[in-house]
């Protein structure tokens, strides 16, 4: 009898990933690896120094591993999959708490500010003359100070902290603006003699109102920001929370983070697949639309791959976990979308540079503007100087400028992801919006990339079934894609194949073999001629018709007599024509490249409506074709699916990789189309155009606001029109400028990606 212990040990072998802390030198690697390899049950330990991680396989369990690393003098902890959903909930909770705090701060400060402002507008003026007034205003001043403390403390501490760090930010401007207004008012009350009569005016209402309005603006912005990340939220919600794992013959539901590579997982009908894996048993159809956008469920059976996040529809499947945690395709996608959402397209760089220098510049402008009022302004110069400096500081917050680009990118990249288009970064997004020429590789891009038998012509008394049965038997030994098509065709008709002998492949011509007593020959015209098989005019003409239809005809002979023609073609994808039309409708020049012969290329190009195509293009020539277009000043998008397209993808301004099924080469292209359809291209172009347009609107709004707002606040319009902004108006404008930008970005969410 087999000892059960060793059996158990074999089954429980697993892989662990440890995060190592404190390893700072190359020599640590060896030390850590040795320590781990000495742990009982460890088969393998390998450290990645760059990432400070060790991959350990064995049956030791995690605890002994961590202990071993600790004993070697380092710290280790197990790397578990991030629970994105929990993180998301936590973030929402903290956002909610912050929102509540902002709203509370807002009510306190507006509660004081609004009555004061109404009083100033309708009842009295806010000047200080009698001792009674002085006392009353002193009380108001203290109340305002309390407001500043309770509702505006974060501005002042923030301003102070960043001042100490030699940096300046939004808080600096708000603290300076409101602080100036308050201090000036207190001077008016406490030592009025310092100021001329006319300038004895208090601005407590400005301080309270500004703090209130800016808190309100922040609160509303927080709410609107939450909506911009909805796409990510939806992706994260695709992750299952638990998985039903088969351990020691028992099925147990465990949290998703505890699933390990090589675990056997059962998924029942209607359940979400928890991790990426390979089916061991069962048969079912799986809805992969959330990953690929492909609406039709895919049949899965033993040996097929399943992906986390997809839904098992009909039957029960058992699969072995191949990629778990943050390695699953879905986790990679989420990660990639998150990254792309935070990267900026070049269009945002100017705004960045400006935002970086903005605050100190504004402080300087405020000082200069105050000096000008003091020197050449009308009486009371002090009051005007204070109002203009305060208003400049308040209106100048660069928040809207800083938000303009990231908010739109966030929504745009998310929107694209929902359509199955993964955009790598902001730069790809911007370039995609400028594409003028799109190069399409034919095979696998316009066509399915899987040849199929389209026509069978039977001659000389043979039936179609005879032809396909014998041809498939003959080809069952060959691994050529055309051979696979013929074998698949026989299988789909449930035709049993016969055993073959004496199989022989004749390079460049075809194949031959014997089935029982019959000698079989399948190949081109040349092969038939060489073997002296007669081809009638009619047969040759039929073959030419096939060739014109982009099909590859093969002659089939039995015992040296022609028995039929088998035509094989790589079918055009259902929606290639419509998608190409969409691209052309956008004014994009569509060019097709193919390694196929001229006739096939022309037939396919005609069918899909492409005028410009290059046939018999070698893989290395694809790069040159892209370069030629670039020399013609085209911004070139290149779409391909194979490794041989990689150089051309890199040469193109934007490389699009077509992901077939879920096996996506996410790493290789600027933009990845999760679904096989070319509509993804048109979608990518449409989304990127809409996003860039949205960014431009935002930047225009933000620039106008700051560029026009600051001079008006400084008093540029005063000499001619007598207009000087009140600090309260500036406060309101500043609060709502960011809100406008975020709201405009959110408008992108309603953009319709698909026109078809």
């Amino acid at each position, binding site marked *: 009898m087999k000892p059960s212990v060793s059996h158990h040990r074999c089954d429980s072998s697993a892989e662990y990933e440890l995060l190592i802390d404190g390893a700072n030198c190359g020599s640590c690697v060896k030390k850590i690896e040795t320590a781990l390899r000495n742990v009982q049950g460890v088969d393998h330990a390998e450290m990645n120094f760059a990432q400070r991680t060790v991959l350990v396989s064995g049956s030791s369990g995690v605890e002994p591993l961590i202990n071993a690393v600790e004993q070697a003098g380092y710290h280790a902890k197990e790397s578990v999959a991030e629970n994105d959903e929990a993180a998301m909930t936590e973030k929402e909770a903290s956002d909610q708490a912050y929102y509540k705090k902002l709203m509370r701060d807002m009510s306190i400060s507006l509660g004081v500010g609004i009555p004061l402002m109404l009083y100033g507008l309708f009842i009295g003026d806010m000047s200080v003359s009698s001792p009674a007034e002085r006392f009353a205003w002193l009380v108001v001043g203290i109340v305002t100070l309390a407001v500043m403390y309770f509702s505006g403390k974060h501005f002042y501490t923030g301003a102070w902290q960043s001042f100490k760090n030699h940096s300046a*930010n939004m*808080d600096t401007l708000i603290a300076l603006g409101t602080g100036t207004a308050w201090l000036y008012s207190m001077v008016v009350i406490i030592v009025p003699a310092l100021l001329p009569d006319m300038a004895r005016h208090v601005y407590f209402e400005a301080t309270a109102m500004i703090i209130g309005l800016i808190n309100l603006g922040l609160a509303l912005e927080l709410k609107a920001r939450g909506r911009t990340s909805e796409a990510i939220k939806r992706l994260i919600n695709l992750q299952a929370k638990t998985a039903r794992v088969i351990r020691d013959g028992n099925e147990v539901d465990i949290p998703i983070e505890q699933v390990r590579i090589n675990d056997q997982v059962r998924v029942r009908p209607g359940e979400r697949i928890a991790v990426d894996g390979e089916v061991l048993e069962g048969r079912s159809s799986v809805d992969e639309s959330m990953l690929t956008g492909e609406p039709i469920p895919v049949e899965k059976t033993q040996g097929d791959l399943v992906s986390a996040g997809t839904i098992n529809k009909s039957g029960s499947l058992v699969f072995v976990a191949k990629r778990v945690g943050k390695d699953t395709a879905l986790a990679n996608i989420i990660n990639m979308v998150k990254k792309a959402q935070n990267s900026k397209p070049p269009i945002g760089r100017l705004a960045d540079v400006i935002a970086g220098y903005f605050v100190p510049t504004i402080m300087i402008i405020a000082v200069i503007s105050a000096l000008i009022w003091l020197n050449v302004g009308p009486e009371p110069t002090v009051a005007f100087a204070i109002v203009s400096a305060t208003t400049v500081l308040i209106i100048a917050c660069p928040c809207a400028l800083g938000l303009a680009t990231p908010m739109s990118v966030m929504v745009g990249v998310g929107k694209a992801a929902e359509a199955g288009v993964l955009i790598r970064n902001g730069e790809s997004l911007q370039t995609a919006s400028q594409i003028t020429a799109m190069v399409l590789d034919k095979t696998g891009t316009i066509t399915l990339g899987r040849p199929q038998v389209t026509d069978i012509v039977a001659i000389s008394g043979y039936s179609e079934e005879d032809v396909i049965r014998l041809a498939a038997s003959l080809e069952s030994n060959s691994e050529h894609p055309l051979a696979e098509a013929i074998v698949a065709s026989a299988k789909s008709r449930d035709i049993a194949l016969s055993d073959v002998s004496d199989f022989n492949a004749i390079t460049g011509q075809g194949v031959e073999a014997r089935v029982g007593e019959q000698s079989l020959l399948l190949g081109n015209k040349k092969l038939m001629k060489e073997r002296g098989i007669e081809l009638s005019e009619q047969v040759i003409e039929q073959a030419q018709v096939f060739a014109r239809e982009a099909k590859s005809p093969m002659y089939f002979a039995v015992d040296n007599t022609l028995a039929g023609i088998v035509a094989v073609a790589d079918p055009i994808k259902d929606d290639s024509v419509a998608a190409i039309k969409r691209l052309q409708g956008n004014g994009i020049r569509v060019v097709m490249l193919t390694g196929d012969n001229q006739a096939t290329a022309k037939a396919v190009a005609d069918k899909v409506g492409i005028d410009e195509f290059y046939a018999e293009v070698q893989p290395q020539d694809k790069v040159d074709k892209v370069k030629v277009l670039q020399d013609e000043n085209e911004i070139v998008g290149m779409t391909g699916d194979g490794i041989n397209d990689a150089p051309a993808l890199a040469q193109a301004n934007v490389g699009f990789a077509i992901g077939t099924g879920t096996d996506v080469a996410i790493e290789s292209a600027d933009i990845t189309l999760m679904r096989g359809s070319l509509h993804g291209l048109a979608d990518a172009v449409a989304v990127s155009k809409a996003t860039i347009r949205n960014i431009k609107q935002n930047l225009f709004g933000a620039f106008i606001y700051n560029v026009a707002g600051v001079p008006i606040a400084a008093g540029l319009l005063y000499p001619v029109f007598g207009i000087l902004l009140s600090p309260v108006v500036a406060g309101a404008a500043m609060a709502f400028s960011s809100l406008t930008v975020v709201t405009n970005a959110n408008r992108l969410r309603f953009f319709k990606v698909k026109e078809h």
Partner: protein
Amino acid sequence: MWIINLVGVVFVGLIVWWFWLYKPNEVKANKDLIITVENGVYSPSYITVPPNQAVSLVFNRKDPAPCAEQLLIPEFNISESLVLNQHTRVHLPAMPTGEYEFHCQMKMYKGTLRVSE
């Protein structure tokens, strides 16, 4: 009046010096270094890391403002969400010597990574 103008000009000079010309003290990154994100600043904000060697920095975000959430290092295409009131480890690739900025999404929180021996 000229005194006030002079004070104003000196003030402008101080702003330029304080915010643009002055370099904050640098801090060498080691395994115990935690960068706190609070009140609109990273502290420390000027960090030296060794060249051509992958390192990681730990950020502790205490600032609930949405501005503070994203940490970007544009040069290396790094963007990380910093979790509120938690330590977030940010892995940096091996970097050639030079100075690189890190900042929040709006560039209101700013810091510098100095890569040198």
